[in-house]
């Protein structure tokens, strides 16, 4: 019944992104049999966890979950502890450690903060897959400062063909931005802009939130074990640059344009009259 999953995904594409977790939980309650399909295809905000061994923060999602426990990329241990939790083969774990180091550098250079985690797993049909996670939260210094969060989820699959590897990358970025405004916070601004208006009080919130997903498939040469890291690194860096531009366009361009398609600050009647006048004038000159 892929039809049902399609309906769930269509629904999630329409409901407010700020309520994704609550709505996914409701859908799982309605159709418990489809929990795995849903959790595997709807991206949810990444959870921050702290590695008990190293004290370092890591990111939790469906890909490092086993039952109720999450595996840390730093210590390779599950929390709460699991004796038989799934872990990568020693060879893949070695690559995972190196990938975590590389993307931690990437995180520092582009995010200047935040947390990153990389998880790898072997595929039954050969090759391996992985997920690169990045998250940064900005908390406001004062109530009227904007706040926000950025979650990147890059899932990739790779298969080697001789000295080439084929990569399939699916990237989702979730971005939430909120600004609160109240007249209390405008205290330093003289309120003489609206002369004669007494008792003026304002209070409001602007929230821009959502997610966008893009895919990419590429072939890259492989020289040694670390080639997979440089290859996926280049692909993810390129994808994030592309998607950051896209997000900027949609968040700050598109949604703002739609507001201006609803309402105009300039007097539309005046513009209409001017157009009429111009038409008349043109008609007059032609005569």
């Amino acid at each position: 019944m892929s039809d049902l999953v399609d309906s769930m995904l269509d629904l999630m594409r329409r409901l407010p992104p700020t309520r994704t977790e609550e709505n996914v939980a409701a859908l799982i309650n309605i159709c418990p049999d489809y929990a795995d399909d849903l959790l595997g295809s709807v991206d949810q905000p990444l959870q921050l966890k702290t590695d008990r061994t190293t004290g370092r923060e890591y990111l939790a999602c469906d890909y490092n979950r086993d039952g109720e426990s999450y595996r840390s990329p730093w210590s390779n241990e599950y929390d709460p502890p699991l004796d038989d939790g799934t872990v990568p083969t020693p060879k893949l774990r070695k690559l995972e450690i190196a990938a975590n180091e590389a993307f931690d550098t990437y995180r520092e250079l582009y995010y200047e903060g935040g947390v990153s985690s990389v998880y790898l797993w072997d595929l039954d049909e050969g090759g391996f897959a992985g997920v690169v996670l990045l998250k940064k939260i900005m908390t406001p210094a004062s109530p009227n400062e904007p706040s926000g969060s950025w979650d990147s989820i890059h899932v990739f699959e790779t298969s080697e063909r001789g000295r080439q590897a084929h990569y399939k990358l699916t990237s989702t970025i979730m971005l939430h931005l909120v600004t609160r405004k109240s007249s209390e916070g405008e205290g330093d601004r003289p309120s003489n802009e609206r002369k004669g208006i007494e008792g003026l009080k304002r209070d409001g919130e602007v929230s821009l939130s959502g997610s966008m997903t893009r895919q990419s498939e590429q072939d890259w040469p492989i020289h040694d074990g670390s080639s997979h890291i440089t290859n996926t690194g280049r692909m993810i860096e390129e994808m994030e640059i592309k998607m950051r531009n896209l997000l900027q366009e949609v968040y700050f361009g598109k949604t703002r344009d739609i507001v201006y398609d609803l309402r105009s600050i300039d007097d539309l009647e005046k513009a209409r009259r001017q157009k009429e006048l111009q038409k008349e004038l043109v008609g007059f000159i032609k005569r």
Partner: protein
Amino acid sequence: MDAEERVQAAANFLLQSPPGEINDVLNDVRNIISDDDLLQDGILPALKEYNLVQFITVDVPGQKHQTIVSDAAKVPSLFEGEERFLDPRSKTSFAFDHIGLEASEPQAVEPDPEAEPFRVALEGAILTHLSSHYYDGVATVFAKPGTAQQFIIQLVANKYNPTNFWSGRWRSQYDIDLEEKSVTGKIQVNVHYYEQGNVQLATTHDVSFLLPTAVLESSSNSAASKIIALIGGEEDRYQQSLNSSYQEMGEKTFKGLRRALPLTRQKIDWDKVTGYKLGAELSSSKALFSNS
């Protein structure tokens, strides 16, 4: 999950529908719940609530204009369970189908003679404001029953563009109290952009102010247009302040979350990232870039 909880969950989804997408959400919900008999009765209250809260507009029978279906438009009914809405502009009440979104059974309604002149004056002024600042909007002015001193102005503008995967809605409501000389307003804007994603703008803006005595001392037409001018000015200012919110979020938050490029303005040299032993040994990030 029992039947009641399933209906509750379905209702909750419907109430979250973006502008103009209630039917799409309803189709998804029908498929997910797959029990039309259960939904048929169960979700009507949610559809009703959605319509009233979202200022759904309807063609008034026998008229060329639309009116807003909302709580303010409800008229006291003669029979229990009967629900009728008022279009004050044509002085018509009507029954409303919350699923088909159509009005029927129009009846003439006698307005409160004391409140009507000022209501008409406000209506004229808000309709002028509407055509001056909205591309496709509907505005309705209600007189609060039982008092000639309180009026409610509601305004809604929608644009649905499913072919290009977006929709938008602007809602404003202003409660005017001539006795208290006050205006209390709320503006809400919702935008949904869903081409290969799901991005939503949701804003709320509460505003209140006192009416200058001079405004109320003028004739009712002049007072009404002055009140609407104050409201229009506040709406313009709000729309402008949205621009500054956009700028602030773009300049501060967006850039603060992730840089467009690293400090060195160059992409990462991945061969060096994996070649170097990272961490403490790496004193400067510059070492990661070629030619630097």
